[in-house]
């Protein structure tokens, strides 16, 4: 009777398969040892399992996604170095679009994965986090991995062969073997991290509570940022976008091409604000309610 109720509650809380079977086996053994034991209310036990396991899964997903993205990012950098000897004039328009997609996805991966790591570090040491917070961690990890994969595959290897007139065989030029090897290892790294993200998406804590936002992500700097932005995350995003435009424009000035710098700065700022508008709420960067800082552990 008790075990049946516990099994149903565990299923309701999202605990499946081997984990659920193991919990039931442990409780069965306990009841065999002490049939009158006070094991607690099945619903409460299931929620406790979901809260603690879901918290652990969400944090693990964020850490693994970031590690995979760091490795993939390094390999993308290797690929970009390999790209340097290529003749840019040989690029087709499809190559240019693919490269642009790759660069945009790369930035999304960097931001999502990085923010996931930051939030996971801030939540380290907490026994259980709210369901909304765990969802943010899983989404950041998932978006990071997806965008990372897009970064790698957006520029198909066949196109780079075509772009490089002298390329006829994999070993004929470093460009040719570096690309597939770096892409392959990067994709494998992302795939290895994917199960942790899927696990975190399937088992979430059951306890409700607020998730942090961009201000909370800033950790010890959040009070300074809140003062500058008046506590508004939207205003903070606008300030960051403007600063981004200024920094990139100044870099263009320093490089002797202010017009190009200003254009790039505006483009980067638009990309950032577009990302904020499109994915901000989904990734727990902005919230509909008033901003709240993460509670102390």
């Amino acid at each position: 009777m008790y075990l049946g109720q516990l099994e149903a509650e565990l299923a309701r809380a999202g605990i499946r398969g081997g984990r659920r079977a193991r919990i039931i086996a442990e409780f069965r053994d306990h009841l065999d040892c002490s049939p009158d034991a006070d094991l607690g209310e099945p619903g409460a036990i299931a929620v406790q399992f979901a809260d603690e396991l879901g918290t652990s899964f969400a944090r693990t997903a964020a850490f693994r996604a970031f590690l995979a993205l760091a490795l993939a990012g390094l390999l993308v950098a290797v690929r970009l170095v390999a790209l340097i000897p290529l003749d840019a004039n040989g690029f087709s328009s499809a190559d240019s679009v693919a490269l642009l997609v790759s660069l945009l996805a790369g930035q999304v991966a960097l931001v999502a994965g990085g923010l996931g790591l930051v939030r996971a570090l801030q939540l380290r040491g907490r026994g259980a986090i709210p369901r909304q917070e765990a969802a943010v961690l899983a989404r950041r990890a998932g978006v990071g991995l997806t965008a990372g994969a897009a970064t790698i595959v957006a520029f198909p290897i066949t196109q780079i062969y075509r772009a490089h007139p002298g390329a006829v065989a994999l070993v004929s030029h470093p460009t040719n073997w570096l690309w597939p090897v770096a892409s392959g290892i990067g994709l494998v790294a992302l795939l290895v991290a994917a199960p942790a993200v899927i696990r975190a998406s399937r088992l979430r804590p059951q306890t409700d509570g607020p998730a942090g936002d961009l201000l909370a992500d800033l950790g010890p700097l959040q009070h300074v940022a809140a003062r500058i932005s008046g506590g508004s995350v939207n205003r903070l995003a606008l300030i960051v976008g403007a600063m981004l435009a200024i920094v990139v424009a100044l870099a263009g000035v320093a490089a002797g091409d202010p017009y190009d710098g200003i254009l790039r700065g505006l483009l980067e700022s638009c990309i950032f604000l577009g990302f904020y508008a499109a994915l901000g709420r989904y990734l727990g960067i902005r919230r509909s309610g008033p901003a709240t800082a993460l509670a102390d552990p």
Partner: protein
Amino acid sequence: MEAEQLKGHLDGLIIAVVASEPKHGYAVIESLKTRSQGRLELPEGTIYPALHRLERNGLLASEWSDTGRRRRVYRLTDKGERELGVRRQRWREFAATVEAVLA
């Protein structure tokens, strides 16, 4: 002593009772009761989420034992042993501080 008062200490108590020898869940509860002379009161089922969490954090390891009855047996890992040392030291300092003030 009720469950609420144990918050923050349960993990340390569990790894302390597992440190002496590997134990299954029921034996962990019994050991907690015996060593506290019956003063620890908590719903016994709450020990299992804690055991799973400690295992995921690398402080405990577990395996099935089939000696007569199939049960999950937990043992302390090297990391758990280090953590136990840290917690013991921290507790002694805390207890000494509170004692110095209260006495």
